[in-house]
């Protein structure tokens, strides 16, 4: 017998889903709302939800006090660059592990993941010293390199699981058709893995965009991305909630927009292979 779905149960579960969605979205909403309040209203207790004096002065102040575009450009270079380099390394790595695994493949995968288990602060001093000696402090290239290495295990791991889903027969058919390994990667494997590649890329982009530990510790101004830009509003003259919110809104806006437009790809990628 098919499960009975009554109108009431649909209504209840729909309401519950909307409520849950709203709860998850609420912090972002609150941040955006706060960014349009005056500093005084941002502090007010009880807080006002929509009925406050709307103002854009925070955005103006933020833009006046620091160069948003400069930081945004750094964020784009660092997040984009580290993602691109990570993919260039991870695609062949995941390919070889998925399609010609050895006895040690599982061990290597686990070992790579284990490097993510170490808290970054544990290597802050050695990395800081190395970066200082090589002149990489406060450089975009230094951060691209570091964030790329930091996210590489996750990127390889994700791509490995996507590649695993691709039937081996198809790659063998390509080999019979005369494709070299390089052409097999370009013409067959990569296009088939696009949903997986897209979601891996987006996830890595978000991780790198929001990465705050290394970007805060290794940059001052020249290479400082948007995370540093936000952080500059929580010190030193005190906490300015409205300006901090405006800065944060500006910082997450690009990534939010990219996420919005690629949500179809992202969802497809994350459920890739679940349904044939």
């Amino acid at each position, binding site marked *: 017998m098919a499960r009975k779905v009554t109108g009431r149960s649909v209504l209840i579960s729909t309401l519950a889903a909307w409520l849950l969605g709203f709860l998850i979205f609420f912090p972002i909403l609150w941040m955006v709302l706060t960014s349009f309040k005056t500093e005084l209203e941002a502090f007010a207790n009880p807080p006002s939800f929509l009925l406050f004096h709307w103002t854009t002065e925070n955005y103006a102040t933020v833009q006046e006090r620091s160069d948003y575009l400069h930081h945004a450009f750094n964020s784009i270079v660092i997040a984009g660059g580290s993602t691109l380099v990570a993919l260039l390394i991870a695609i062949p790595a995941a390919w070889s592990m998925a399609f010609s695994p050895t006895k040690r493949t599982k061990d290597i995968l686990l070992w790579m993941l284990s490097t993510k288990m170490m808290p970054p602060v544990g290597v802050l001093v050695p990395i800081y010293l190395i970066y200082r000696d090589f002149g990489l402090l406060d450089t975009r290239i230094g951060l691209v390199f570091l964030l790329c290495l930091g996210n590489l295990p996750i990127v390889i791991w994700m791509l490995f699981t996507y590649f695993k889903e691709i039937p081996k027969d198809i790659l063998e*058919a390509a080999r019979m058709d005369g*494709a070299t390994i390089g052409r097999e990667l370009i013409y067959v494997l990569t296009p088939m893995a696009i949903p997986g590649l897209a979601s891996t890329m987006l996830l890595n982009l978000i991780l790198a965009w929001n990465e705050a530990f290394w970007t805060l510790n290794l940059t001052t101004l020249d290479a400082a991305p948007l995370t540093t830009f936000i952080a500059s509003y929580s010190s030193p003259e005190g906490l300015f909630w409205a300006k901090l919110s405006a800065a944060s809104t500006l910082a997450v806006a690009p990534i939010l927009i990219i996420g919005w437009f690629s949500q179809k790809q992202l969802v497809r990628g994350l459920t890739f292979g679940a349904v044939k």
Partner: protein
Amino acid sequence: MGRITLQGVQKSFGPVHIIKGADLEVPDGAFVVFVGPSGCGKTTLLRLIAGLEDVSGGKILIDGKNVVDVPPAKRGLSMVFQSYALYPHMSVRGNIAFGLKMAGLPKDEINRKVEAAAATLNLTPYLDRKPRELSGGQRQRVAIGRAIVREPKAFLFDEPLSNLDAALRVQMRLEVTRLQKELGTTAIYVTHDQVEAMTMADKIVVLNAGKIEQYGSPLELYERPTNLFVAGFIGSPKMNFITGEPAAQRGATTIGVRPEHFRVNADGQSSSNQAWPGKVIIAEHLGSDTFLYVDAGPLGTLTVRCAGEIGVKMGDTVLLSPDPNRVYRFDASGNAVHV
């Protein structure tokens, strides 16, 4: 030209010997079917010929040239996979053209060849569709189109029809056979379905546990199986094997009688002392044939196939007389004894 010769070909995966020394000569233009139970190594042998697996020993010659160190694409063979293995992101045209594109042929020549192949396979209206928009039979035809367009020395088929439904399978069986005869290209075809083997093959290779048991034309295998395995594997329903007294009388350890080689005496009256009495356990009436499963006491359960309807019911006692010219004799090691 496409003459394929195997000389002592071996394959092991670690300590497991999958192919234990195969010698075979596939003449140019022949349709050779590898048949055997699952796990007998037939697909492995095909993949060795294709170059998708490396041999552990022996030689594979294509037109007299040893190709064991030649990569798959350079062997001049094309393969049709069980899963079709179409490129899902390419159109039918893209799928068929892929091999030619990899070979670096000029565009207009590729187009001409793709359209010719598509026309042969009735795929012209579907050239711009994606594989997911096609039915199983159409996908299979695309896979075949991808194979023929490269004008290979030989086609390798790995159970290509096993994902199709029964009616389509029969139709595609005819199409593949017709196409192969038209093109005159050597074909090696792997299947576990002996009806496919018997109907399509010029010659059949029966494989069992990594060994070639017999190589011959379908009727040779049916009429003169070299051992118990081939005798039991070829023919449907399976040959009846009888040991003991009746075998000893005929100077053999085991004798075999095919279900269709019994004369059934339904009134229970013995016409000769060579007849075996038995009780019908199950009678299957197909109209065109009647299958009887007869409990023949010490001889075990015998399967009998009679043409047409013979009016025998469950529980009847019948006398079975094997056709004396069609009794196969095997010695203690299972090999056929010839007179």
